[in-house]
């Protein structure tokens, strides 16, 4: 096995081009488990810890360009106001030790349907900046997840950053597990209100082959809010509307029975999380409106 230590982004891309089967390693919280248990013996490891731009973020025109290796701890400490949904999801990742190493780039690279960042990214929207020696391209987050642990990266590409719009309204994240810490999601749900476009975006985790949005639920709630003029009036949301939204989210999932939970439980839990998080975010949006008035 080779251990490659690029110190610049260009060197990292050159290494990936030369060793397409090489596994990039940053925080190591997924990759090292595979190695420790001898499940995987890659031809080479590419250590990304020495590439400075992966560990920084920039805020530009209301978009956060988040370096792929920025640890979850730093997202929580520095970006909660701009990326509240992602920050809530980050709080639920592993333990403090894991959050000091794990990053959104790792979640995206692994593309596990259970990755905690995915529902938050789907709910806020955004683009993944990937690059190879051939050039750079932006992949919309909606097109990034292709299958169980499969993403849209070509074999010579690495993830440089994620571009996430700053929140303009409340976001939430909810996750089911047997305890608070060190839990792989049984299922999870992210939601973001987008008053500027009159839309509500969603993300379902751990209840389908890939993280996915609940588009029928999104269209339903957008129409309900528009028809009643609720974005402007900041009026109350009917309980029956939140209930229906939850049902539609559950229908959008295609969960399986596995060791962490049954498909039926996952569907039920999703409907409850969706109903609750919609109600929380909407009530927060109403309160913010009153405070501003």
């Amino acid at each position: 096995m080779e251990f490659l230590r690029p110190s610049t982004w260009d060197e990292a891309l050159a290494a990936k081009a030369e060793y397409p089967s090489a596994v990039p390693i940053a925080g190591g919280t997924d990759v090292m488990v595979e190695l420790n248990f001898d499940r995987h013996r890659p031809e080479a490891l590419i250590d990304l810890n020495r590439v400075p731009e992966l560990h920084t973020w920039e805020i530009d025109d209301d978009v956060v360009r988040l370096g792929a290796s920025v640890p979850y701890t730093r997202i929580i400490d520095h970006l909660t106001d701009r990326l509240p949904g992602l920050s809530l999801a980050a709080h639920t990742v592993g333990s403090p030790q894991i959050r000091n190493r794990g990053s959104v780039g790792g979640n995206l690279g692994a593309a596990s349907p259970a990755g905690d960042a995915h529902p938050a990214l789907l709910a806020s929207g955004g683009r993944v900046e990937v690059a190879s020696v051939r050039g750079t391209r932006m992949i919309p987050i909606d097109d990034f997840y292709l299958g169980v642990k499969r993403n849209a990266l070509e074999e010579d590409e690495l993830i440089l950053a994620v571009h996430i719009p700053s929140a303009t309204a409340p976001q939430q994240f909810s996750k089911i597990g047997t305890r608070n810490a060190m839990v792989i999601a049984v299922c999870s749900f992210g939601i973001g209100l987008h008053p500027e476009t009159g839309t509500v975006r969603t993300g379902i985790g751990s209840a389908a082959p890939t993280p996915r949005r609940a588009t029928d639920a999104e269209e339903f709630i957008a129409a309900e809010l528009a028809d009643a003029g609720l974005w402007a009036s900041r009026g109350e949301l009917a309980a029956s509307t939140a209930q229906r939204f939850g049902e539609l989210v559950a229908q959008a999932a295609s969960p399986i029975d596995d060791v962490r939970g049954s498909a039926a439980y996952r569907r039920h839990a999703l409907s409850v999380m969706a109903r609750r998080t919609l109600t929380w975010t909407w009530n927060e949006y109403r309160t913010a409106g009153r405070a501003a008035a």
Partner: protein
Amino acid sequence: MRITFTCNGRLTEADGVWEGESLLYVLRERVGLPGSKNACEQGECGSCTVYLDGDPVCSCLVAAGQVQGREVRTVEGLADGDELDPVQQAFVEAGAVQCGFCTPGLLVQTHDLLERQAQPSDAEIREALSGNLCRCTGYEKIMDAVRLAAARRAESAERVN
């Protein structure tokens, strides 16, 4: 491969390191520091917690090659010569140690907590230690130890002032 890093303030070298090896393995098997414990090898238990460039991490999840030129502080680096760190002393006095396997990780993690938050609430202690599993104590004595260590640190800070 060969790796060189600073460990507990000393320049440390390890030879013949396999490229897929963990920092934990290097510490325990190559440089004679078996304080960090090997239990789960998947970041679930916290027994191998060490500082890496000042942040507590699971050393089983750090590739050995990643520590080249970096700074590591293990449980062996907490005491000042024969004098235990206040966190270690508190664990002894509170009876927070039974089989002792989880203790090194808990000591490093508690040490970091008190560096960042001198007077943590119980909720903050539980959150900080949520990645460290103990199968003996039921955690109550560990909570006592962290509170005792925090109180001692506050006392000694007052004395200095």
